[in-house]
């Protein structure tokens, strides 16, 4: 259910940026979403198709770039990418002293616009 306000946020952010650039249409929106966030891509796309109707972003493609969290073992130094559910132990040495960082990114990276007003 939280995908609805999140999608509205994506749409508002993209449309504001497009208006600033005098764009006629938004062709694509590039999103960066951390692997620890509970956002379901398909659900966002579903809401987006409805919310974007009659806006500059109608028909735009959503491109999700998922950034996994990175984990580092404090015992053996092994580093690896991880997503929930997190493994309780280092895959290399089985130590439980693992630290996870990142994975909480949540932003609109860029938009692709149609700014050709010659047609």
């Amino acid at each position: 259910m939280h995908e609805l306000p999140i999608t509205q946020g994506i749409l508002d952010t993209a449309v504001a940026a497009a208006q600033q650039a005098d764009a006629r249409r938004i062709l694509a929106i590039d999103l960066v979403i951390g692997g620890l966030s509970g956002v379901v891509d398909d659900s966002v796309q579903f809401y987006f198709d409805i919310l974007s109707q009659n806006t500059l972003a109608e028909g735009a493609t959503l491109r999700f770039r998922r950034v996994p969290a990175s984990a580092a073992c404090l015992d053996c130094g092994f580093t690896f990418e991880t997503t929930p559910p997190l493994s309780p132990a280092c895959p290399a040495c089985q130590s439980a002293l693992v630290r996870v960082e990142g994975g909480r990114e949540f932003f609109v990276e860029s938009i692709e616009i149609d700014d050709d007003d010659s047609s």
Partner: protein
Amino acid sequence: MTTIAVEQRILNANDQIAAENRAALDAAGTLAINVMASPGAGKTSLILATAARLPADVRPAVIEGDLASRIDADTMTAAGIDVVQINTGGSCHLDAPMVRTALPELLAGRPDLLFIENVGNLICTAEFALGSHLNVVVASSPEGHDKPYKYPGMFAAADAVVLNKADVMAVFDFDVDFFQRGLAMVNAHAPLFVVSCRTGDGLDAWVAWLLAQRAQS
């Protein structure tokens, strides 16, 4: 066709209102605590037990965020605590605009602490900034000791974690060390308070920590 860099947080509009909420809280001298948990972990019990242990000169107030109903708000009123109920009407989290509607009434009384009881949900509540000073996650032993591994985003966002229902831990084969290791995996700074709101065990340390945060703010 042109690509434009945007680099803006998706919930930017919410974040801006959260910043306004924070300014209003600071102007009133109120420390706000966003209390997040699964349904039934003991958010209401923790707020009541905490309020009962506060020094006489520290006055609490509460925002109750629920899908529907006034059950928790009525409990707070019965305990003599100023409360505003927000019904989210199905939304699974509070957001900054909802909290903003409750602030004028509550901040008029200039409470020292404002507990914001967020809708019971371990998935997305941490994504929506409210303007609070502290994020506190309440977990409980019946939920199982794997929660930090399964919901790392929530535990990573916590300034403190309260593990409630310690009195029945043995019944649920709850492994505190496993839980604590999972918490440490995603969050190096949040202290863990193991408490029982039913027996009162462990609550003094939690209240002392909370009062220390207030003194520092």
